């Protein structure tokens, strides 16, 4: 990392997270630069999801700080983090099981709906216009992620692949500047993997900075600008995909992980 990089949009500084006696993350630091796709890889149990949970306010770190554009956002609540323009998807399907896909996306626009309480209570014309705008945005999102045919289906009834797409669309709803994707490719068919990779590129092309957690290195390397490698809660490498591929420590961590698993 010799070349001078632009001012980071997100700085992870010495993040440590303990659960009881277990250390899930140990002194992890790295930067996220505007407009890039950063891959975070590592074997199972490396602490990748915990890292997302710490950044997005689900957990408070035991030590260390997170800065967003120079502002300390450590320990803010999830909804406050979303307001800052940092949004995330989930590894397991966290969905509103009994809501339709369309309603999901209307909900995901929650922050950007300016409807006041009284307006929506009395159904004022302004409120109705506002609601129509929200619905149009929801439709647009549906089209963007390729769910336009699934609009009326319930979240719980979607296939695994569509649930993944819906998860990403939900995270796009708040119109984030930074999007954190937690294993968007896991358990997908090769065709769907390509679709999702294209989608991630399209998201980046809209100006959103993307951080992707993946277990599967090969697919991720096709779209990443840079890669951070975690193993057993520690950062063991950071660099361009080409460098990482040949990094001895990374290979060991993966092989070791595979053997142990």
């Amino acid at each position: 990392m010799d070349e001078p990089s632009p001012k980071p949009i997100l700085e992870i500084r010495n993040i440590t997270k303990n659960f009881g006696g277990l250390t899930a993350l140990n002194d992890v630091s790295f930067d996220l630069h505007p407009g890039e796709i950063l891959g975070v890889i590592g074997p199972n149990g490396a602490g990748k999801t915990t890292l997302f949970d710490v950044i997005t306010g689900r957990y408070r770190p035991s030590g260390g700080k997170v800065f967003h554009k120079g502002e300390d956002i450590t320990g803010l609540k999830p909804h406050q983090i979303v307001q800052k323009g940092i949004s995330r998807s989930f590894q397991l399907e966290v969905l509103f099981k009994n809501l339709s896909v369309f309603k999901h996306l209307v909900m995901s626009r929650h922050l950007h709906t300016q409807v006041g309480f009284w307006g929506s209570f009395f159904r004022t014309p302004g409120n109705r216009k506002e609601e129509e705008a929200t619905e149009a945005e929801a439709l647009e999102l549906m089209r963007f992620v390729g769910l336009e045919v699934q609009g009326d289906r319930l979240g719980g009834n979607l296939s695994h692949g569509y649930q993944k797409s819906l998860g990403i669309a939900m995270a796009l709803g708040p119109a984030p500047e930074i999007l954190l994707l937690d294993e968007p490719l896991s358990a997908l068919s090769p065709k769907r993997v390509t679709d999702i990779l294209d989608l991630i590129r399209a998201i980046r092309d809209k100006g959103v900075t993307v951080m992707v957690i993946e277990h599967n290195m090969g697919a991720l390397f096709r779209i990443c600008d840079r890669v951070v490698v975690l193993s057993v809660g520690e950062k063991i490498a950071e660099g361009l995909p080409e460098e990482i591929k040949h990094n001895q420590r990374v290979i060991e961590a993966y092989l070791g992980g595979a053997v142990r698993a």
Partner: protein
Amino acid sequence: MKRRNLLGKKVGIAAVIVAFGLLPVFTQSPYWMHVFILMWIYIIVTASLRFTITMGEWSFAHVPLMGMGGYASALLAMKLGLSFWVALPLAVLITAFIAVFVYLPCLPTTGTFFFFASYAFGEVMRLCWVRFKNPFGGPAGLLFIPAPGPIRIPGIPAIEFGPLSKIPYYYTVFVFMLLSLLILYRLEQSRLGRIAEAVKESNLLAQFVGIRVWRYKMVILLIGSAFAAIGGSLYAHYTTLIMPVDFYWGLGIYIIIYTVVGGTRHFGGPIVGVFLFVLLRELLRPIVMYVPLVYGLILAGTLVFLPEGLISLPEKISAWAMKKKIAAA
């Protein structure tokens, strides 16, 4: 087609409202007036309980908070000499204020824990009425709660509330019920209702689309308690005496049974539930001892065979008929 259905529904609801609005023209029997007045009060309490359930948590402090509304309103009228018309809104505010302290400790919990924790704090509040004779009157409760003051509309004689006629009470409670239902329905259709649905479906995901889950849960619980307080205040000034035992968890269970048997998914569910059970009680008056038995069996039957409540029965039947048709074809 859909629009016609909607129109039909609206006409149907209007017809029901007019029919019950004209009820006193057909019968002025104090007995039936009494039955219906209590039924309208139960509908307010039950519908507001269901409103809190839309966000996914069952409150077991709802009935004690109804009692709080009754006590607050009665004490304001008795100790400060306020008119019912002033005491009721004040009691609603007081109850909502106390509800903050009842629900705030419960908020970190969910599911069964929320349910029983809210019971615990509601019960502590209720036991305060038993323990502190001044001002709550102890186990004997409050007696001689003043009736509402007369309504004076220029041009017609003043409408007096008193032991002579139940009709003024009937209309007062009826109007309060209609307004409460209207407001609750509108709330559910509004953005608040949608947020409640999201919170119910996934607390976690709701947070990550920017919903302040705790705040909205609290708002919904407080709105629920406010309507419970309206029910309690009407109850107190109508019956003129309230006791702590009126708001024992037994009543809480009845209210929950009305809601569950009617169906929690649909706005009309609890209304159907209250109607069914109150009228059933009247039908079974000759064998009143067995009423709880019948209630228990209906409840058990509904939980096992119709978990979405009686309101889902027409839907279930048409689905069944459709299946048969398809099988026949």
